[in-house]
């Protein structure tokens, strides 16, 4: 068990995959904003890859451990202190009973960070997942962000969990500035002109400050919209980006007039605006490390390249990435 001394920012219990098979009922998946970072953290401490850990943004929590624990911190670049001694990220570290873990913001690189603990977070599942969905107050620890004074139970570590397991430096997921995020076609791409599409892939997009787990608002080039979008009749709505309400793929680029939203872990599951592009599975973690207020670029890729990206991400499940 550990106690929350300082709660940090947007600190919640999240697992990797979130809630599956319930988006048709309007429940978003929830789960880690950087699924790759939490997966790596879990592997470092010998957990099941989908195990629940602690997620935070910008400013990590300060925790005090009541029992010996094995932890790993991954994701956003920060300074990790255990009992005021600095330790590296991307590595499993032994914390002794009574010791404090402190996370200090160090750079402006990345945004979402993870603390994986051997044994995982011992909270009940709701609809098949430990991920927190604060809007409905379900999952995680009491369905909410962690607060100072919370005492959080930890599960049994796996027998093979070991101190000193490191992710090889060359495999630390690269955070660039600007972050380049891959896109593939989505639906109603013909609502865009050729010029619109060219602009989308040749512009810098800014991540606006009103971005969150419910969606990353991005500002980019002005969109003209094609004749098809403008002349489709009143049924769907008067804006060229309106469509008849349709299911939204997660990590779609949802265009609503001149503003666009990257649909993330707690976005609405259906709506009346089109999704001309989608971020493939292997690139979704990049959204989690594209800091709000910074710029990103998009790159159009094929299904074959998406398969390769996914294989690259799956590579982190192999022992050859660790030492």
């Amino acid at each position, binding site marked *: 068990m550990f106690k929350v001394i300082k709660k940090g920012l947007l600190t919640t219990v999240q697992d990797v995959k979130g809630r*599956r*098979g*319930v*988006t*048709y*009922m*309007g*429940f978003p998946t929830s789960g880690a904003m950087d699924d790759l970072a939490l997966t790596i953290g879990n592997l470092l401490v010998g957990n099941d890859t989908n195990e629940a850990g602690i997620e935070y943004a910008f400013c990590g929590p300060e925790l005090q451990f009541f029992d010996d624990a094995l932890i790993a911190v991954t994701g956003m670049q920060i300074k990790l202190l255990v009992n005021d001694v600095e330790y590296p990220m991307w590595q499993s570290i032994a914390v002794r009973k009574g010791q404090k873990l402190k996370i200090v913001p160090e750079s402006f690189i990345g945004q979402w960070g993870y603390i994986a603990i051997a044994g995982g977070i011992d909270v009940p599942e709701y*609809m098949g997942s430990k991920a927190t969905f604060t*809007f*409905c*107050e*379900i999952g995680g620890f009491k369905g909410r962000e962690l607060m100072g004074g919370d005492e959080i139970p930890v599960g049994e570590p796996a027998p093979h969990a070991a101190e000193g397991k490191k992710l090889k430096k060359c495999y630390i997921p690269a955070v660039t500035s600007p972050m380049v995020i891959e896109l*593939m*076609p*989505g*639906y*109603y791409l013909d609502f865009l002109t050729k010029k619109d599409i060219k602009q989308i892939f040749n512009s810098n997009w800014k991540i606006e400050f009103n971005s969150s787990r419910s969606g990353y608002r991005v500002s980019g080039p002005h969109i003209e919209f094609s004749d098809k979008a403008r002349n*489709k*009749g009143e*049924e*769907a*709505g008067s804006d060229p980006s309106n*469509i*008849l*309400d*349709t*299911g*939204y*793929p*997660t*990590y*779609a680029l949802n265009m609503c007039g001149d503003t666009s939203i990257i649909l993330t872990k707690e976005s*609405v*599951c*259906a*709506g009346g605006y089109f*999704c001309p*592009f*989608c*971020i*493939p*599975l*292997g690139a979704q973690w990049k959204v989690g490390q594209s800091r709000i207020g910074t710029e990103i670029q998009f790159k159009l890729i094929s*299904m074959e390249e*998406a*398969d390769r990206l*996914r294989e690259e991400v*799956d590579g982190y499940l192999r022992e050859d990435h660790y030492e």
Partner: protein
Amino acid sequence: MIRTTNYRLYMCGDANLLLDYGQVRSIQAGVKSIMVKRLLTDKNLQGIIDMIPCNSSLLITFEPRQIQAHIVIAQVQKIVEEVENNEQIRISSRIIEIPVYFADPWTKAAIAKYCKNIKEKPYDVDFIIERNGLKDLDELIRYVTTPQYIVTYLSFGPGLPSCTCLDPKYALHVPKYNPPRTSTPPLAIGMGGSNISLYPLGSPGGFQMFGILSAPLLELNQKLFDFRKTPVLARVGDRFQFRAIGRPEYFEIKDACKAGTYRYKITDSEFNLAEYNAKLNA
């Protein structure tokens, strides 16, 4: 993208497939989407994660590590063609009676707040009555409570059912709020375009509110009888039969819910598209 005269299939990213029957809302397309979901569920394919029916479309989410995209496309297209050639499309469709307190004080207060803080507008109930050439509130109640409404999607918010009128004689239409509200009282019922939406938790929204429900649509604690298997009351394809209630019954239902004894009136049934079309054309 696969394009035929009746439908399109869009591969979205590497993990989603959209079946789209077109940009026109129709009972036909809605029921076909639900039927395709049913048939795809029966196939029990490993790797299909979710299927979101919504108006005239079905979004299928899958795990490409377990099932390849081209196999999902092939399986879905096979089922879609089967449904296109099926004269007897039937889906299971329970009939749920939904008590509604029309022109209630809570939505009235929310509208007054919108007028004060955002933009002046006519009272939603009056607006619906005027826009549809109805006489008065009694006629609005008659229009909403006579036909059945079929639930065409549940995905706009947790447990949020959106439904379409099954009888064109009673179809109503009204523009949405512009700009939308930032909040809606929980359990409000509203109309937007030709759809009715019921808000289990309250949320931002743009539908014209004409009443409030007394019993929950979403019960996360799953204490009431109708929620023992799932926290969400409605299923896509269910039909709602709205019933007008007054203030006393509104509070009686609320008390029964608090006591844990309330049960909805739900009838198991089937919706037969061919029979429905025949009745329409009669």
